[in-house]
């Protein structure tokens, strides 16, 4: 074999290896999806979506779970969106390069890596106990807001950073203040990116069970919450609960609930991708 033939063979070998690596994750995901759908799809019907939980698997539904998940989504958005965006704007536009700013920056990056159960413990102490919110939707939403704040802050900063210096200069040169420049130019121009980040953060929050279990969200809630101070459950907790039962019927229920949860997550991700593409088309620097 000549050297060049050897090289071509190596090249080919790496391509095959690369394809294998790429597909390994996808295949696992596909097998998992296939398995879940096979198990759970036939269980999903109208009754499943609008029934309260029950000790009898055939009568149990996920009404309280998905309504709880929606509540959590909305409340978390209301809390985390303004906080995260404001913090991101401050760090990117206002904070002077100082030791303090550096310190903040490093710690926000660290926060993004803290395990979610730790946030649960934090939420338990601050919101549930100190603020006396109990295992309520509000306590859950506040806890999840803490969890996704670092993600929102980081993506907000990235989005803001992508607005060119020249746009800011143009605004300042016309006599605009910093705030006017941020509000009228920087935020509108980076809004698509910020929104994408928030939606991706929310889709992470939707899938969290651990921190909510810690703050005392219940698996069995026989009513749909009607105010932020009501007790609640969410889909991941319902799924966790069902999978820990020995009966096969509950496993089927769990699979069906997983499908619903996945649909919600994929929908959120889809919206994020759509917004990002639209933004990229609209503004080309």
């Amino acid at each position, binding site marked *: 074999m000549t050297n060049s033939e050897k090289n071509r063979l190596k090249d080919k070998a790496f391509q095959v290896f690369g394809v294998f690596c790429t597909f390994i994750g996808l295949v696992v995901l596909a097998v998992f999806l296939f398995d879940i759908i096979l198990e759970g799809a036939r269980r999903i019907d109208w009754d499943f979506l609008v029934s309260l939980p029950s000790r009898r698997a055939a009568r149990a539904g996920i009404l309280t779970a998905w309504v709880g998940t929606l509540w959590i989504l909305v409340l978390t958005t209301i809390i985390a969106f303004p906080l995260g965006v404001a913090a991101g704007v401050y760090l990117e536009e206002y904070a002077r390069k100082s030791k303090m700013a550096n310190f903040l920056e490093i710690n926000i990056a660290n926060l993004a890596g803290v395990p979610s159960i730790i946030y649960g413990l934090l939420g338990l102490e601050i919101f549930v106990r100190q603020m006396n919110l109990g295992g309520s939707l509000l306590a859950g939403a506040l806890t999840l807001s803490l969890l996704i704040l670092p993600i929102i802050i980081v993506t907000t900063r990235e989005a803001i950073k992508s607005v060119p210096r020249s746009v800011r200069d143009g605004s300042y*040169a*016309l*006599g605009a203040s910093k705030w006017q420049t941020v509000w009228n130019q920087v935020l509108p*121009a980076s809004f698509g990116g910020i929104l994408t980040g928030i939606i991706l953060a929310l889709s992470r929050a939707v899938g969290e069970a651990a921190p909510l279990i810690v703050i005392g969200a219940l698996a069995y809630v026989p009513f749909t919450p009607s105010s932020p101070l009501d007790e609640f459950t969410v889909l991941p907790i319902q799924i966790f609960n069902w999978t820990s039962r020995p009966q096969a019927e509950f496993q089927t229920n769990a699979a069906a609930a997983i499908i619903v949860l996945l649909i919600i997550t994929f929908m959120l991700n889809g919206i994020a991708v759509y917004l990002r593409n639209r933004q990229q088309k609209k503004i080309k620097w």
Partner: protein
Amino acid sequence: MSRKHNKLEAINLDAYYGDFHALKGINIAMEEKNVTAFIGPSGCGKSTFLRTFNRMNDYIDGFRTEGDILLDGKDIYTKEVRVDELRKEVGMVFQKPNPFPKTIFENVVYGLKIQGISKKAVLEEAAEKSLKRAALWNEVKDNLNKSALALSGGQQQRLCIARALAISPSVLLMDEPASALDPLSTAKIEELIYELKNDYTIVIVTHNMQQAGRVSDNTAFFYMGELVEYSKTKTMFTSPQDTRTQNYITGRFG
């Protein structure tokens, strides 16, 4: 005709970026309704100097000045001067056209809107007037709600000029306004500068010697942070006093 008064002045101006001494003891006076060109090799301080007149350097960490910059005889670097008020008086056009990612109309009236002017009739009148002044009106009058980013580079730059004129400044600072444009667009901008000097005091930074010769009344040559020579443009290009000036304008370096 009465003698023109000095619109812009620098007196013993030093400027620093941290430890770097960017401008060294600059003294210059520019008459109103004149065009002054700043020329010099890259990094000579001419853009830095231009930006001291509307305090655009304020945002740069570690930038500071010593000495005075006067607008109509008043120091603009005192505490009493509000930067937003100063910039209403001293407009600026940048090297690369930088329209906002908004409609053409929104671009022109932005400066007015941030002053709190929101009457539609007032804004529309101002937009038309400024766009006409910037020789862009005929090209865009039917598309005022189109995105400014859809315009050509030359049109974008004239839009930026219109945007600066809309808030009625008396001084217009131009930082290599044509360096990113094709020759035809450049000619239009130069024509425009010639028109505008009837009403505005214009300072233009340029790398293009011919451009300086065509548009300016006076020329200032900067080298390594110093103002080497400042005189009537004609004088500068026919009989420069300093050998550095001579070397630069004859193309021996730069």
